[in-house]
């Protein structure tokens, strides 16, 4: 019985070590998601112009990352998370396109775009002077509209590179394309934004 007891003890030690590792991994994942979630929801909201849907997309991305890729290295989480999120955004646009076609067929206009209330979707004040806040808000609205008007791939490349600060390699992983494509999309996006936003942005 001593052999069995020894094996049982080793198994218990393994389980305890495994539990400690899992707890540490969970804490790291929690920290990562906490760091990324706000920027992710803003990026998704700019892409689809719908705050509630953006929150759902971010939640789905969090769940998929936690379920499928939690055991990957921490440095892999950011590109993987944004890849899942960007796939969600693309699927959302596809579903939206189908829904719009159906609505047109039934002669019912989808008023979702018209109902988008920029004031209601505006972020709450964070202790800045009202005029400064208003100025920033208006500038951000202009920027959001300009970004939203970009082709999808340019929009993705711009937000991942400029807002999230991903390098070219991680952006390529997140977008599921080559690094050369990322550079091209990003460069075109910046030039296009400069044209759209006009001289007062330069």
């Amino acid at each position, binding site marked *: 019985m001593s052999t069995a007891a020894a094996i049982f003890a080793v198994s218990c030690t393994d389980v305890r070590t495994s539990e400690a590792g*899992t707890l540490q991994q969970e804490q790291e994942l929690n920290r990562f998601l906490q760091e990324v979630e706000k920027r992710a929801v803003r990026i998704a909201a700019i892409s689809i112009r719908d705050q509630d849907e953006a929150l759902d997309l971010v939640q789905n991305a969090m769940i998929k990352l936690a379920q499928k890729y939690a055991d990957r290295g921490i440095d892999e989480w950011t590109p993987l998370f944004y890849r899942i999120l960007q796939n969600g955004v693309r699927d959302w646009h596809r579903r939206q396109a189908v829904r719009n076609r159906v609505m047109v067929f039934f002669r019912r206009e989808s008023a979702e775009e018209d109902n988008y209330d920029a004031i209601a979707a505006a972020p709450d004040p964070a202790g800045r002077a009202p005029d400064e806040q208003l100025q920033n808000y208006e500038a*951000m609205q202009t920027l959001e509209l300009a970004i939203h008007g970009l082709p999808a791939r340019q929009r993705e490349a711009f937000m991942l590179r400029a807002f999230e600060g991903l390098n070219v390699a991680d952006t390529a992983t997140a977008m599921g394309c080559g690094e050369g494509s990322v550079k091209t999309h990003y460069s075109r996006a910046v030039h296009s934004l400069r044209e759209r936003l006009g001289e007062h*942005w*330069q």
Partner: protein
Amino acid sequence: MNKHDEQADAAKDELLVSKAKSLFDDSVDSIDAATQSRLNRARQKALAKSRRSGLGIPMQWLPAAGLATAVALAVVMWNGAGDSAIDAEMLQPIATAQVGDFEILMNDDSLDMLQDLEFYSWVEIDEASDIESDVDANVG
């Protein structure tokens, strides 16, 4: 486009990206409490699902855990089989005695003896003492 123009162009790009980043960060900092609360709930939900899907054991440890369990089970069964052999030897007289008792109970002839157990035990002790006294006499 000469080199000077290229540099000016790159500077303008950099300025735009920098301003856009600053506005974006500002909007992130201004996210309202309701959205933050929803994000927090979403995060907790994701972590709970991760816990459930992982069952507390990382996937790469599952084959090792399975092998350890199988080995432990085999050892316990092996040792258990040895113990049962010993137990059988030890239990054999008890089982025999129980069968004997059963036979006595089922045999009508022996029921009288069971009723006078005290008498028979006295006879047995008396016979034993007689034997001992005979032995002492012979030795003496």
